[in-house]
């Protein structure tokens, strides 16, 4: 069973067909690079995986479970839940400017914590209400009030603890990407490379099974791409898969287990980095690589 399986994805914007049937799969621990000229549909493919665009046809499976099928209608909540199998790092970082690096990483975690606790509390107050109803009718009002206050207190404590754990986790991840010193800086005080590393930390904090990168170094000054690529390299792990859309062929060749070359909305050629870069088969890939070699 594949870790991620994408079947027959099609996507059109108006009359322009951007994806014309994409099929691929990857295993746990895999790093897949997607290369191809601009307009070939690479970014759209990633956006379909993250449900920022909904594919017109096709389906997506994670660990054998269908998390998206274009035939079905999904409620916003379901999409939100299924989307969390994936993380996405944007080309333009999209950090939240009004928050520090640390808060950027914490915010989504804290929101999930609060939501989870609110749900748990609702469930509990319901069961306790049931038990009160079942108990002898004369539970005194003050006793009930006391129980209510106690419940509130214990939840406040739990929440505080959970939020502290989030902070610790966020700090650890920021240290991992080499930003331990910059935790309390705002995005406008950071360099592009640092911003992108915060964005990577933010995506990592939610522990996605498949981490996607949409041209993570294209918006950076050339001298800053190194630090970001280094971080991405360090993320290769048997526990997660990564899908990287990139223009850095050197990097793709060196990090990937598999390279996908896209052209005109289809996967023109796929294989190991060796096969793709050393022995390209299709004319389009040969032309693309030639063009790339000439322009650098």
């Amino acid at each position, binding site marked *: 069973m594949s870790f991620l399986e994408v079947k027959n994805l099609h996507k059109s914007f108006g009359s322009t067909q951007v994806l014309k049937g994409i099929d691929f799969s990857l295993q746990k621990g895999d790093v897949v690079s997607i290369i191809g000229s601009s307009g070939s549909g690479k970014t759209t493919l990633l956006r379909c995986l993250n*449900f920022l665009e909904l594919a017109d046809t096709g389906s997506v499976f994670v660990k054998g479970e269908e998390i998206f099928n274009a035939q079905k209608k999904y409620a916003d909540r379901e999409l939100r839940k299924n989307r969390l199998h994936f993380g996405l790092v944007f080309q333009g970082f999209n950090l939240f400017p*009004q928050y520090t690096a640390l808060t950027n990483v914490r915010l*989504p975690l804290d929101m999930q914590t609060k939501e989870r606790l609110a749900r748990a509390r609702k469930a509990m107050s319901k069961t306790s209400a049931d038990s009160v109803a079942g108990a002898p009718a004369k539970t005194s009002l003050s006793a009930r009030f006391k129980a209510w206050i106690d419940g509130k207190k214990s939840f406040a404590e739990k929440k505080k603890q959970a939020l502290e754990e989030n902070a610790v986790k966020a700090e650890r991840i920021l240290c991992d990407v080499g930003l331990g010193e910059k935790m309390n800086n705002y995005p406008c005080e950071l360099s592009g490379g640092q911003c992108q590393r915060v964005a990577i930390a933010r995506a990592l904090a939610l522990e996605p099974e498949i981490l996607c990168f949409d041209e993570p170094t294209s918006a950076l000054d050339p001298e800053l791409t190194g630090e970001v690529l280094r971080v991405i390299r360090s993320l290769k792990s048997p526990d997660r898969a990564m899908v990287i859309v990139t223009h850095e062929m050197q990097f793709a060749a060196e990090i990937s287990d598999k390279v996908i070359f896209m052209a005109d909305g289809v996967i023109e050629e796929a294989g190991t980095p060796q096969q793709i870069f050393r022995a390209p088969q299709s004319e389009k890939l040969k032309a693309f690589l030639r063009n790339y070699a000439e322009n650098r």
Partner: protein
Amino acid sequence: MQELATGFGTTLLLFVVTLVIALPLGLIISFGSMSRFKPLKYLVKGIIWVVRGTPLMLQILLVSFLPQFVFRIMNKDITAFFGISMSSLMFIFVAVAFSINYACYFSEIFRAGIEAVPRGQYEAGQVLGMRKSQIFFSVVLMQVVKRTIPPMSNEIITLVKDTALAQVLGVIDLLNAANHAVNEYVILTPLLYAALFYLVFNGLLTVLFGVVEKKLDYYKV
């Protein structure tokens, strides 16, 4: 001087009431004008067009006549029912007209602010598993606030001076009080005092907005 102070109190009250109602109402209207549900969008846009396209003074008069002409309820019945004075009722009419009028202006400022937030911010929130409301309140709103402070300060300073229109319903605001004093004592100084009041008040507001803007300087949008 006593009358001027009372008049200023009325002006201040109208100012505060209008802001408290018009700011949230303006945000709601801005959502309406950006709605993807076309009928709602065009209805709201139509209302904004009418409210911004007609004089505020006309709107005040219109609001004050609505109960009598449309609902056939006499003003004295309303005052009797709620146990308020006629001058309070007039003040309420003025406040209603002001709130609606300013909410429409504010809504356009909010719309500009909201539409200026890059798509990427929403998308980042989405892929991080946030709900739409979480994205709006935790991500977008503070960026909107920062962007809209300069045009808001413009509009709010205009509001201070527009309060003088309350006198079309006989509300004794600052300018009306000053005018009475001029006529009664045949001296010009009350008008100058009134001018001073407006100036100082707006000066304070300007300083306040400057401070807020400075406070939000720590991030760029």
